[in-house]
């Protein structure tokens, strides 16, 4: 698949390079540290899903 060519390709590259350089200079100050683990995410997803399923069973049992 052809990409942008000539001058516009150079312009895109220059624009990205400028941004990436700015990010590289500051990367150490960016991340606050991971506080929420994958396990915790799955835990919350599972119990809220079970709540929806439980309520649905209740609804169909009652109607």
């Amino acid at each position: 698949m052809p990409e942008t060519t000539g001058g516009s390709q150079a312009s895109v590259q220059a624009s990205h390079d400028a941004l990436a350089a700015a990010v590289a200079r500051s990367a150490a100050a960016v991340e606050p540290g991971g506080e929420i683990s994958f396990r915790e995410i799955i835990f919350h997803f599972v119990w809220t899903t079970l709540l929806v399923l439980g309520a649905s069973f209740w609804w169909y049992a009652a109607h």
Partner: protein
Amino acid sequence: MATAIEPAATNEYDSVLPIPAGDRYAGTWTMIWLWAGGNILLTTFVLGGYYAPGIGATGLIVATIVGAGLGNLLPAISGLRSARYGVDEFIGIRSAFGTRGANIGVLMLVLVNFGWIGIFSALAGSSGSASLGQFGHGLSFPHAYTVFALGVGLVLPVVLLYVRHTAVFTLVKFAVPLLVIFAALLLWKQFSVFGWHDIARYKANHSVNWQYAIEAQIAYGVSWFPYMGAWNRFAKSERGSFVGVWVGMGVIAILFALVGGFATLTTGSSDPSVWATRSGLGVPALAIIVFSTLINSAMLLYCSAMAVRSALPKLPYHFVVVIVALPSIAFIYQGTLNSKFSILLTIAGGFIAPYWGVAMGDYFLLRRQRLDLVELYRGPGSRYWYRGGWNLIAVGVWIIGLVAWMFLGGWQSPYSWLAFPPGEHLFNALTATAPVVVGTALLYAGLIKLVIRRGKGTAAHGQLAPIGAAYEEAKPAPVAS
């Protein structure tokens, strides 16, 4: 040690760069007020009214609580990416779709915002002019609809963003607690006038079913996916953003949907302007209309502006704010509330849910929450550039998810050609949005793992070669010292 980004940097890129941890100022309570304010919408009232007659008063309470619990958890999870790395949503999802593929999300957000802001403004116009009538004829004036719709829905939000976009944080801190009190007052008024026994007499008329109610709450929550990054990157911590989104949006989703649902049952109308007229609560109703529209239009316009600037960083911020605001005017004056709302929920479920499902599969299942920040900003040659800036596997899974959602939930849209009876039958067992989010995340992660395990993500396999590079173990993320 690397130098921190100057917070006062004035080059044209400053607002799309990641925000250093030390410069993020939104604590947990600020995030709760922010996202609570985000969900204080006339449409959140309307949502409860959509399914209340179908499932009755008791069903309304249960479906709203469990649906909002799951529906608002999904954007809370998705928003963790920007909270961790301080990047805008559409920079963060480059890891999944490629640097250019992320622009599909930008386009969806900007187009959907035209509709949402149009709806907010139109509701502000009709409800605001109806509320003025409560104060007596002396306060009503010609073109009140246009003044409320354009003034509160577009002009004031643009002015707010022009002056200082972070003023939204200041506004929500005092306005949102007040609006929550007003909403509780509306709920109390309904109970004091009708009493629970009267309200509980409204049994389900089965005009819509239980799954529709659950689906409506989940799709409404999922419609927030594109907006997470622009604001969560200001959060001091991941947990602050997570709690802010889930608790802030979830509590408001429940409270407002219940108020709207009960009001619909007791007045027989799902139109807030009718409740404003009949409730006799002129000042609280007017305050909710004005502040909720102002806060939300400003939040959404800022997200649009940032999304556009993530794709075109050289465009001036103030110019972009106006450009993304203007097309909403068309939506203020045409279409009914019901048709516009149905179309937007269809777009949220059909287009947005699978797109962010893929992004969540990439970030949580494959990358285990670790990104290479510098590579997110690099152009050609970046590990997230894939092929020509596009990850075609991600785009393909998104399209599969889109088709799957339309098969399951297309019947909810105003277009009869999107109704598939077998899909509707399956919807009654599965709903549509939640399974599509989970399904696309799993399918994408599975396909990528398959490509890598079979050794096709190597230079020897032309089209798939960039996949292997994109999913090499990310460099250990730097931690502030």
